[in-house]
């Protein structure tokens, strides 16, 4: 049984010119305790998906136009705002790319942590809250936690700020932690620390993680299963092992080929995907990837590829996915 099921989720945004459909029939499931990687480039809809799950779509511009998000037997989309508040931070928590924008710059770290504690665990006394705050910071690997509580966010490094955000997300151990590009702004050695921390917390608490990133290498590192998104649609889904061993969608193949390899020969031409991501105002008909796809044929322009159950519990949205299998053989 899945912990979370996103069923045919569609989301539209109103812009000055028109209404654009930024998510189109997005489908995936999340099992208890697993790490699901959601990968794609800027504008593919990966962040909008997470905001929709959290009920945090910017209003009134963004709205869900179809689909369901099933969590604990209920459709989260039917929840009233106060019901959502009881889910957020308790059952589903979220951390963002730039903790500086998520933390209040003019309040000390301690005050912010204790404010969340007061909100989520009002039964605790001030002393207990202080004690829990110190424990939480200690748990996420912040040295001298008592000292840090009296500091402002700008006095902490990027890695430390992200640790504070993770500490806040752990006030209630959530069923699901949504991490939206949590290491993108960090240096690699700090990124390694944070990835290790998230994996460790997951082992301890058995929470499920939705890890959103543009970095396929990070996905390979932490994800059990991967959803690849392109221009608001799911291109393909597979376990991490399968996806990297044999990508079925031409977009996934292109992405994997574009990464410079550490063992490759320097100063040789990299493989590229021609052209660029289309804007939502100018989406091609049929398959949204067809303008950049080397496999594209007439059918791709006229018909949106169905999301096939391709093979071995893998899904792919490409009319000609079977070519990928033949390519390898």
């Amino acid at each position, binding site marked *: 049984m899945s912990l979370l099921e996103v069923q045919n989720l569609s989301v539209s945004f109103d812009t000055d010119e028109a209404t654009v459909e930024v998510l189109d029939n997005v489908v995936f499931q999340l099992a208890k305790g697993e790490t699901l990687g959601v990968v794609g*480039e*800027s504008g593919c809809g990966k962040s909008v998906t997470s905001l929709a799950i959290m009920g945090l779509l910017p209003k009134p511009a963004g709205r869900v136009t179809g689909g369901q998000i099933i969590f604990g037997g209920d459709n989260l989309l039917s929840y009233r705002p106060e019901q959502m508040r009881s889910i957020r931070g308790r059952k589903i928590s979220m951390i963002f790319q730039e903790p500086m924008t998520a933390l209040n710059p003019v309040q000390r770290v301690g005050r912010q942590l204790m404010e969340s504690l007061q909100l989520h665990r009002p039964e605790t006394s001030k002393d207990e809250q202080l004690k829990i705050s110190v424990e939480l910071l200690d748990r996420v690997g912040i*040295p001298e936690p008592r000292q840090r509580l009296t500091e402002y966010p700008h006095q902490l*490094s*990027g*890695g*430390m700020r992200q640790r504070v955000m993770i500490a806040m997300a752990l006030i209630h151990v959530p069923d699901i932690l949504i991490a939206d590009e949590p290491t993108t702004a960090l*240096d*690699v*050695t*700090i*990124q*390694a*620390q944070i*990835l*290790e921390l998230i994996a460790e917390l997951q082992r301890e608490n058995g929470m499920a993680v939705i890890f959103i990133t*543009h*970095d*396929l*290498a*990070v*996905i*390979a*590192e932490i*994800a059990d299963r991967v959803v690849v998104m392109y221009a608001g649609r799911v291109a393909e889904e597979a376990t*991490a*092992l399968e996806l*990297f*061993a044999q990508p079925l969608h031409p977009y996934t193949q*292109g*992405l*994997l080929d*574009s*990464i*410079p*390899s*550490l*063992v*490759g020969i*320097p*100063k*040789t*031409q*990299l*493989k*590229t*995907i021609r052209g*660029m*991501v289309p804007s939502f105002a100018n989406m091609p008909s049929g398959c949204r990837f067809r303008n950049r796809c080397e496999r594209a044929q007439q059918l791709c322009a006229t018909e949106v590829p169905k999301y096939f159950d391709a093979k071995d519990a893998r899904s792919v949205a490409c009319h000609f996915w079977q070519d990928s299998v033949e390519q390898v053989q």
Partner: protein
Amino acid sequence: MNDEAHPHLLEVHGLTKFFPVKRGVIPVSVGQVHAVDNVSFTLKRGETLGLVGESGCGKSTVGKTLLRLIRPTEGSVIFEGRDIVRMNRRELRALRRDVQIIFQDPFESLNSRHTVRKILSEPFIIHKRGLNAERKQTEKLARKEDAKQQKKLSPKAEREKKVYELLNRVGLDESAANRYPHEFSGGQRQRIGIARAIALKPKLIVCDEAVSALDVSVQSQIVNLLLDLQKEMDLALIFIAHDLAVVKHVSDKIAVMYLGNIVETSTSENIYLAPRHPYTQALISAIPIADPTRRPDRIILKGDVPSPIQPPEGCRFHTRCRYAQPRCSEEAPPLEQASARGNVACFFWNNLKLPQTQTQDVVST
């Protein structure tokens, strides 16, 4: 100024930059940020040096001092035999024909109120190279070949022609000339930044995180463009980035920086196969690999980079180094030759194990 007299296009000796830290209503200097401390390297024509290191290691400061956008505290930067540090304004202006820079976010370095035509015409106007925009040798050639045709064009028309040539060269449509920077995507804007940098046919381009903000599929396009241009124009590149995989892919040699020092230099192949400095080893082991079947033995460094205002005594890495000995906190290790084309600044590099044998449980405190 020919090639024989100066085998190196660029020679950097003992480059040092301290920024004063000022406090108070009447600002008084209370300390110094040791941004770059005694950095030396050389670069040949057509060669690429990758500068890698984490935030605050001083790699961007090095890049900016090469164009003297920042004046170094000490040291010399010799470009084609002349010291950039001692140049006057006129000489500097001439220098910037030969040395250009591309930034991470072209949106901030392109004037948002100018059309692309104006942005790309400016180098020719500033350097008074309207009619005879080519370098002197090519100018002579051109005069011989199609003297008549050249004369027919007015300076403005000549510039126009150049702008279209540039746009074509970087893979943009000619119609781009009439548009403004905000009308382009990140990758296209970076193409405009590159077009402007190559306008005057420079000999050296500093790429400061030039592809870091781009999506993977666009990043590979821009990397290919830079590699093409380098071959075509015999360009030397200083490629500054925190993404080691990209740096390794474009560079001939790599210098790893930590807290203002170069801790290791090597060829771009060897730095991955045989990193010698403990910091380089940790840095490389931290890079995620896009292959779930390969799990590197990761060296997790404890804590953050120390403050560059009071960098640690002795070896600056000793506070996070798992091999540190008492000597490391007293004495700074010099950058010494470790192989035919590699230098390393560590007292014990010869006794360290290579990362293949490293295990994850060894962590410094």
